[in-house]
């Protein structure tokens, strides 16, 4: 018991260095991981899909996919996992680490780029490094999907307008018949230059009380 505990703590230190979470936060996330996985070591997509609170979210599927996306692991691989372990879970969560007061300017820039990359990966579903028009249309459709009034045509029109915006702002001297294939990551960064991400895209750890979990579900 003791050996396992020290091994777990040793792992936690490594994870803390790698992802930037504090030990306490890793502990909380581990408990949540255990609860989601049903005490197993890995999580599959079904575990995540069964969370009731997520069911209202229009981009629920994209979020779940993001956890299983290899590009978010920053290890250079491309593809999709079937199941993820705690380390992968933590890596994805590290994109949403709350900023502390001690992050320097370069770290802040790196975090911003990280978050933008996460967003980009979520839209670029075929992993070719570009967000094409079809992919963008899908994004807008999902976002407008709950209101029901805006039909598919309107979503398409909006997506087209957005693409045009990116194209014209990133390549102002575009010739008239140039076929703009897709938004690359640099263009993506550029068009979202004005968007303030630091205060929006992170989660908050409010309650760090001890967890009373019950495993016996009727």
């Amino acid at each position: 018991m003791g050996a396992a505990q020290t091994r777990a703590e040793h792992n936690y230190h490594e994870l803390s260095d790698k992802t930037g979470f504090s030990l306490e936060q890793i502990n909380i996330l581990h408990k949540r991981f255990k609860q989601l996985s049903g005490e197993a070591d890995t999580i599959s997509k079904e575990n995540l899909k069964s969370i009731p609170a997520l069911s209202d979210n229009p981009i629920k599927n994209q979020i779940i996919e993001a956890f299983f996306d290899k590009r978010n692991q920053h290890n250079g691989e491309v593809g999709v996992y079937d199941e993820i372990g705690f380390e992968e879970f933590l890596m994805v969560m590290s994109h949403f680490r709350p900023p502390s007061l001690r992050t320097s300017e370069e770290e802040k820039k790196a975090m911003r780029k990280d978050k933008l990359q996460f967003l980009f990966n979520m839209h670029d579903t075929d992993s070719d490094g570009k967000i094409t028009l079809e992919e963008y249309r899908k994004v807008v459709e999902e976002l407008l999907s709950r209101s029901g009034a805006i039909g598919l045509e309107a979503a398409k029109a909006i997506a087209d307008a957005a693409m045009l915006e990116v194209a014209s702002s990133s390549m102002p001297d575009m010739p008239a018949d140039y076929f703009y294939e897709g938004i690359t990551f640099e263009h993506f960064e550029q068009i979202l230059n004005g968007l303030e991400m630091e205060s929006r895209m992170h989660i908050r750890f409010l309650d760090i009380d001890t967890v009373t979990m019950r495993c016996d579900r009727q």
Partner: protein
Amino acid sequence: MGRMCILCLRYRVVWCALFLLLCFSGGECETQTTQPSGPTSSQGVKPFHNEDPKPQAFPDPEKTNLPVFTMDYPRIQVPFEFTLWVLLASFAKIGFHIYHKITIWIPESCLLICIGLIVGGIMHSVKEEPPAVLSPDVFFIYMLPPIVLDSGYFMPTRPFFENVGTVLWYAVVGTLWNSVGIGLSLYAICQIEAFGVQDINLQENLLFASIISAVDPVAALSVFEDISVNEQIYIVIFGEGLFNDVVTVALYNMFSFMADMPTVESVDVFLGVARFFVVSLGGLLIGVVFGIAAAFTTRFTHNARQIEPLFVFMYSYLAYLVAELFGISSVLSIIICAITMKYYVEENVSQRSCTTIRHVVKVLASISETLIFFFLGVVTITTEHEWNWAYIIFTLVFAFIWRGLGILWFEGAVCFALVFTLPETINRRKLFVTASIAIIIFTVVVQGISIRPIVEYINIRRSNKDKYNINTEIHSRTMEHIVSGIEDLCGQWSHYYWKDKFKKFNDRILRRILLRDNRAESSIVSLYKKLELQSAIGLLDTPMGDLSAAPSIVSLHDEMKEASRPKKKFKTADVRKMQNILAKNMYKIRQKTMAYTNKYKLPDESDTREILIRRHASIRRSLRTTSFRDPPSRNIAKSQNIIRCSRAATWRQLLRSDEEVLVALLHALPSHSVP
């Protein structure tokens, strides 16, 4: 946004005025004679009254003619003046809103206080006293409950219960911290000879501090709202402001009792703690009992729909009065009563009653509050003050400091009210009164006026970076969804156990007893969803499509028929239209909490209503178009399903108005269904 300031200020400043009048009638103004109310009061003591000509027992020696025109002011004086006050305050309110520029900078509460000050000044100069009917009891018993009921009824319960531990922790510990800290600091100040307040002993200082330390940090919320802070922080602060009443009352009782005694023993401290538990648990118990009684009663009211709203008000008022009877925290009991009964009552009563209840709660609260601010101004002028610069300034300073140390913002005032109930034996009562008034007015004015510039400054710092284009709009919304999804993913799971347990208890026992029409929630909801989905899919298949979007989009669609790549440039007007459509139609998350705290409006259901209207339109269209193709029996069955669904519990808001619409649909149906 300025309304948020009001939300914070009103609740506390309410109490102030109440007690102003308490002091007012208790101490300084012995010349007040209470008017006997009711029909027996033709013996007015007002100076400008003549006695009414009475029917004489003996015939007059002189013959008097029949009076053509008589005036009997004392008879109607009390209700008349009351109505005039309310009317005057309401006119002031209307007037403020005409000049929109004023209300941006100065919250309405400040303006009302100013008007009250002016009127008070006028009254003081003509040596007229404010109406004697404004005794503190009247305010405590009649004016405070509507405001508290309003806060309790529209409190967002789900986030509250998920954070109840944090809320109570901050309420109890925060208030204790503040009061003890401020009390001790002020006592230290009193030791300094130069300020001339040495005669205030420790108990009195603690008593005063417990009054002052009533925290109402909802002011912080108005700033937070603009930065779209986490819902949890929001509800913690909101709930805490409501519940520190309990602690304040207990502390106040304890300290005021101790202030009378020459020595304090440890037994008394223990008794004080015991009293705290009695106060809080008693309030809880009374609230729950009356809430359940109200819920149970509404189970049987389906044949007497007109009196349904009455039960809500009567039971909650009873809860308040019974708690007052036992000296228990009546605020807590009425809030708990409102929370308990709301869930069940809104399922049992009809849609009209539901709307009526909400509207009346808001109206009563609005009246009470307007009057209270108004009278605060009036009575401020007419009380006697004792002003000691040092004490007052140090109170302000310490209140700031200790609140700041408690990581909470400074606002003031349940204190104000309580100050006036201080026992007469405390020598420096007037000083306390003045100090409290000063603090309240100071915070109301300073904080109210300063909030907006602060928020704008923060906003300016942020919004300069946001360049508004379509991409930004889309992706910022995406980010919100992602963050909320991730937060749901690693949610506050420690509370799920109790939540599940309560849910089971609720489903098995409570709902059976308290609801008239108890169906299992989920099956109805899923059925409704399925029907909706069918109609929506059917709608997409039909060639009509939904043309309720802006016409320009339709023309754009024509232009871009074969758009596999964007070719043409868009006009800025079209771009703006698209931005508008995006802003209005993208799925909005977690707006419910914010919607509940706008004091002047009912909870914002415009989104729900908008979605509902659109779905209605699509249902109507699909029913009509399919009615010629499908056999009529299936059609009627489908609409009957809808009607049955419309009585379901969970989507009550949507389904409430559904009931009316769908009944109308059903009436319209037979003409279509017969081929």
